[in-house]
């Protein structure tokens, strides 16, 4: 059980009334209609009421007019993964109305805009028609803005029928509109009007409601892309090059937002200690980052699958020429355009081997928004220490959805610039220096960067074969030795990798291995299985290459289910390749459909395999 769910269990004294603080809401709207603001407002208001909550946006690759859904999970027990079923559905989109109607669990509630005139053929649910147009009009909203605020009607009606505190709703709006009175009051006016209309006209017949708790006081709400940007800023990022791509764009945009705020130069006031360049494509984005990393800057780029494909050649060169840089992959569903607005863990093997020839790349695997921040700064230390690209593999679910997380923590280790030497160091070495010489026996050479004025500092970086002194070489022995040194270097990197997170239960029947955003679903599934007398151990990997703890966990378990959000069991493939002696222990539990994983799916797939 996570710290969060344990905490919630402890704090939850509100009893186990069915329907209180334990249900899911799905809101079906048309994209481009302002529904994101409405949904975030509900999510944030519930969060401010102290109730554990999560929100997931299922949106189309489109700007306006296509169906979009938003699911909110309220869970007093702190389980925040998506669920397969929903107790409450809000139907605002005629195009998906009938399908949305069928999605309500028996006994659930169906809220709908009353101008959508389809027969409602279900007797097992409670229905609440909402005169959306009338309420919007009556709220006094100017006619040209009504379309944009109409979705606030369901915020008001839900607030009234679920018991969401209007004061918290106001706080949420205030945050969203950054304190700007006009939009806050315009939207709040609609919410109030809908709330009042609901009090006067609707009678509650379903059991679902919220009650104030105090389980979220120690949390903040943020998305992974913002966290990644902030973490990078604390990691001292100096150069960012990027190209727009869903779902990674908001990472670079957050850098643009927060860098000026947080990186005021203490020595030369008013100056920027960073530069952000929007490149012409991903080929250039990574090229610039490689150039900057080579010249001694903490450099990064952020992208998603298609961009990653274009970055491959430079990633291979950076590995071979030993250039530090950080590459964020906020994964979406591929191959090709795939499902650009849906989530997956489909890039793992691609990154692992990224580059032609023999390459092995370092990959950090954040499992939470909190870790997006942490790995945001750690990635630079590892990249510069190892003189290698470091990939950070996030995904759309982490990157773009809002999650409740413990507050960000200041880095607990000083900045590590690795083995970079300057004029004084070279003076001491009396010119006895070779860019690719392994002095310390760890495979990591010493490096200089452009601008170093020492007469022995310069070297010529290249993708062609090179000697320890960085001279061009086609000598078979030189090639062989260099590639072996790179392998040793990769091995050395294990000691700098974040260790896996391991959670054990007494008498565990088997182990589960996973990485990334699937953690919440797996935690919940483990909880359910434990209640069915199937206790489990769980190791969430946080980096590749694997640390010693990973092997120990594998040794300790005869049967290990490897849960991942892809078709082919990519992590299983890597584990089998890395631990061939234990290859038969790994059972892939791999599934992908564009949506985030649910506990139900995890549990059912594992149980099916067990039979």
């Amino acid at each position: 059980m996570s710290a969060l769910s344990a905490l919630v269990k402890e704090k939850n004294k509100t009893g186990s009334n069915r329907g209180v603080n334990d249900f899911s809401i799905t809101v079906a709207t048309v994209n481009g209609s302002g529904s994101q603001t409405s949904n975030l407002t509900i999510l944030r208001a519930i969060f401010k009421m102290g109730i554990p909550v999560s929100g997931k946006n299922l949106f189309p690759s489109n700007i306006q007019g296509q169906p979009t859904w938003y699911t909110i999970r309220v869970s007093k027990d702190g389980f925040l993964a998506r669920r397969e079923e929903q107790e409450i559905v809000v139907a605002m989109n005629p195009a998906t109305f009938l399908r949305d109607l069928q999605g309500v669990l028996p006994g659930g509630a169906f809220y709908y805009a009353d101008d959508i005139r389809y027969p409602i053929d279900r007797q097992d649910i409670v229905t609440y028609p909402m005169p959306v147009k009338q309420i919007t009009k009556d709220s006094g909203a100017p006619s040209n803005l009504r379309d944009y605020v109409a979705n606030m009607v369901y915020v008001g009606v839900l607030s009234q029928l679920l018991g969401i505190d209007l004061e918290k709703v106001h706080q949420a709006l205030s945050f969203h509109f950054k304190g700007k009175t006009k939009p806050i009051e315009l939207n709040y006016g609609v919410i109030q009007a809908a709330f009042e209309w609901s009090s006067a006209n609707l009678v509650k017949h379903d059991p679902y409601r919220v009650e104030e708790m105090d389980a979220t006081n120690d949390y903040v709400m943020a998305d992974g892309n913002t966290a990644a940007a902030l973490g990078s800023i604390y990691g001292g990022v100096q150069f960012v090059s990027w190209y727009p791509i869903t779902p990674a764009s908001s990472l670079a945009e957050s850098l643009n937002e927060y860098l000026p705020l947080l990186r005021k130069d203490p020595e030369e006031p008013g100056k920027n200690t960073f530069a952000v360049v929007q490149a012409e494509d991903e080929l250039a984005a990574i090229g610039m980052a490689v150039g900057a990393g080579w010249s001694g800057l903490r450099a990064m780029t952020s992208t998603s699958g298609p961009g990653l494909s274009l970055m491959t050649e430079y990633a291979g060169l950076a590995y071979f020429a030993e250039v530090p840089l950080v590459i964020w992959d906020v994964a979406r569903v591929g191959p090709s355009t795939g499902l650009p607005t849906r989530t997956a863990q489909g890039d793992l093997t691609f990154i692992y081997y990224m580059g032609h020839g023999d390459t092995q790349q370092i990959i950090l695997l954040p499992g939470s928004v909190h870790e997006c921040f942490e790995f945001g700064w750690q990635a630079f230390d590892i990249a510069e220490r190892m003189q290698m690209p470091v990939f950070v593999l996030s995904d759309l679910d982490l990157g773009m959805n809002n999650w409740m997380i413990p507050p960000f923590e200041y880095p607990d280790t000083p900045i590590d610039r690795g083995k970079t030497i300057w004029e004084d160091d070279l003076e001491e070495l009396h010119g006895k220096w070779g860019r690719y010489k392994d002095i310390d026996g760890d495979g990591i050479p010493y490096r200089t960067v452009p601008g170093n004025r020492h007469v022995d500092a310069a070297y010529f970086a290249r993708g062609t074969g090179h000697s320890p002194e960085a001279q061009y070489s086609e000598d078979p022995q030189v090639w062989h030795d260099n590639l072996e040194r790179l392998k040793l270097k990769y091995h050395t990197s294990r000691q700098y990798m974040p260790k896996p997170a391991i959670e054990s239960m007494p008498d565990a029947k088997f182990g589960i291995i996973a990485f990334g955003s699937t953690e919440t679903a797996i935690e919940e599934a483990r909880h359910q299985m434990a209640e069915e007398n199937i206790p489990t151990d769980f190791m969430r990997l946080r980096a590749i290459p694997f640390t010693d703890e990973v092997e120990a966990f594998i040794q300790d378990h005869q049967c290990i289910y490897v849960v991942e959000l892809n078709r082919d069991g990519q992590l299983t493939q890597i584990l089998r390749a890395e631990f061939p002696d234990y290859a038969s222990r790994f059972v892939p539990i791999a599934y992908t459909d564009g949506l985030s994983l649910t506990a139900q799916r995890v549990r059912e797939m594992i149980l099916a395999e067990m039979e």
Partner: protein
Amino acid sequence: MSEQMNITGQRVQVNLAGLTKADYKGNPSTLCQGCGHNSIASQIIAAAYEMDVVPERVVKFSGIGCSSKSPFYFLNRSFGFNGLHGRMPSLATGALFGDTNLRGIGVSGDGDTASIGMGQFKHILRRNLRMVYIVENNGVYGLTKGQFSATAEVGLTLKSQGTNRYMPIDIAWEALVGRATFVARSFAGDPKQVKELIKAALSHNGIAVLDIISPCVTFNNQDTAMHSYQWGKEHEEALHELAFVPPAEEIMVEYEQGEAIEVTMHDGSAVILKKLDRDYDPTDRTEAMRILEEANRDQLLITGLLYIDTSQPSLTELYNLPETALNRLSPDRIRPPRETIKQVNELMF
């Protein structure tokens, strides 16, 4: 320039940087004997020496191809990075943010720039990165043994390749259209002009494109080929006679009123363009494009400084960077102080 004793007691010529010409050398060239690229490398060495450039203040970049090997043949004391095919511009863009006091010299070829690298070429122009961008243009892929490049003329017949069907790309024209702030065309067979143009380019505060016809003696040097020595010699028409005058040096070049144009560069140096057969104003982009069209029509190799605009800021000047080089900033200047983390958490919901 002055004389100094070297360690073996010989008298050697040194420049104002206290360096001999040998200090600007590179490794021995492995390109073909007579390759235009070798001549250009020699002129880079001569220009840097004569300009008293400190080699540690230069960074060399290249893509892939014969041209892209050449940074290895000059300025051994400068950092260099031989990157990917067509992607030298992005590499240089990132690298030159590391320390904005550095000068970039990028060497590319017609394949590297006009085919695979056209996108990055165009975008480095609009960003006006302070760098000399030399295209060693020979109309042919040398390292892969003689295929047509995108600058080869229609009708060019090459051994085992047949006859070229497609229209050529004019790199200088592309540079002008792309709003490059310094565009020149030259000819490896005219080393004096090449050298003066390199000096001017090194003084330019922005992207300086030198499209240098640099014959490939192995694969494309038939007398009738437009990238050959013979054709160049017969058809070159220089727009002007160039003389570079370093900063704080008195202009000694003699010319009559109205017989030359003087362009003052960002660093106080000057380029004197002495009139030859025609009046030519290199600050007029339209005129530059017109003269390229005319040269194309008349089958002339027009050389010289086609266009210059010294008023535009270079890329890194747009970023409000500190005096201290970014790559020398201490950790406390790149990690926000501890107390800010509280603010950050308060900014979240």
